[in-house]
């Protein structure tokens, strides 16, 4: 009985130990780069490479960059970092154009290529190994070198539409503002008119009809307030327009 208890106890201990250990994370190294990078001739471009390792970053870490030119089938090694020392290509096509800006302890393995040329079109591969964590996929970034960087699709489209709508909105707002100020001034004028006597009113109505040549709004307002007198003026002014809309 005690043996059985002891056996089951040790089994329990083993089970507990195993459950504490695993599901152990897939211990591989993950490397991340951009997919595509665009650069203009003569400028510089940063090829960024970051990685994630489940192990502590040791001094044995190694970072390598390979380059495969567009249309070619071989891949040459252009950069190597090992034992805390960066080794930059000084005999190949990137001679004196490459710069190491990475920091392995910050999990960054980026390089900068200056003075781009059309021969730099191709695929760059970043590979990081952090012993004992060495299993993992490397990551690739494709470099495109242009004469000038093409604007993204939709910039011109959006700016034309946005600009036109904005312009129209501004003009409409201005027109309504001006009309609002004009209407306020006419309302004040009307108030002054109605405060005077009827005789004086008839004289000022004649003046107002002269003003109505340039002020159609005033004509409309007098039409509302007065019954008989401005109808003749309305007929005289509105005759050409009314003849068009006569058949109803």
């Amino acid at each position, binding site marked *: 009985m005690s043996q059985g208890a002891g056996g089951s106890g040790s089994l329990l201990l083993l089970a507990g130990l195993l459950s504490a250990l695993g599901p152990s994370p897939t211990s591989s190294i993950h490397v991340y780069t951009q997919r595509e990078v665009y650069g203009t001739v003569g400028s510089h471009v940063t090829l960024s490479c970051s990685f994630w390792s489940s192990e502590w970053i040791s001094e044995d870490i190694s970072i390598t960059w390979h380059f495969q030119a567009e249309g070619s089938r071989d891949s040459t090694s252009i950069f190597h970092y090992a034992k805390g020392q960066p080794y930059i290509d000084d005999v190949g096509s990137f001679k004196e154009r490459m710069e190491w800006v990475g920091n392995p302890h910050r999990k960054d393995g980026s390089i900068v290529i200056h003075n781009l040329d059309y021969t730099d079109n191709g695929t760059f591969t970043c590979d990081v190994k952090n012993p004992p964590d060495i299993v993992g996929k490397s990551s690739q970034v494709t470099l495109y070198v242009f004469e000038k960087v093409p604007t993204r699709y939709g910039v011109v489209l959006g700016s034309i539409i946005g600009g036109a709508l904005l312009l129209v909105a501004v003009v409409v707002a201005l027109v309504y503002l001006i009309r609002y100020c004009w209407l306020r001034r006419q309302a004040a004028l009307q108030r002054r008119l109605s405060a005077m006597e009827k005789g004086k009113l008839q004289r000022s109505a004649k003046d107002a009809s002269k003003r109505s040549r340039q002020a159609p709004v005033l004509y409309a307002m007098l*039409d509302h307030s007065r019954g008989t007198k401005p109808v003749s003026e309305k007929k005289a002014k509105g005759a050409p327009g009314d003849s068009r809309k006569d058949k109803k």
Partner: protein
Amino acid sequence: MLLLLLGIIVLHVTVLVLLFVSTIVSQWLVNGGHTADLWQNCTSGSVFHCLTSSTNEWLQSVQAMMILSIIFSVLSLFLFFCQLFTLTKGGRFYVTGIFQILAGLCVMSAAAIFTVRHTDWHQASEDTSYGFAYILAWLAFPLALASGIVYVILRKRE
């Protein structure tokens, strides 16, 4: 009065339909089994597949102008109904007319830019001809202009 109103609305809706069809349908340039328009180039024949058009700036400006013309025309229709009920007696449909005229001008500039610059993104061969969507766009221009002018000279009754 009702007949006139109906006629004006039918004209406006016709302009709108022309604008929509010419913007959306893929028939601006026709080349044998190959059709190209503002948004995609399609090849019919044994295999039917479509590719998006190039990202040329002039093509984008043509697209923008067509979209703007549709926006202005729809806005003009909406404003017409607004002004029908809110305008004082004897007033004119200025805002409606101006937007419709703007729509017409946009269509004209879009078609003109397309005519001048379509060789930038589409190699012209001998049997490339203009499709019916292109013709509809040119048709929409005078109709939109006429519709806008009718709105401007129209006066509201009762």
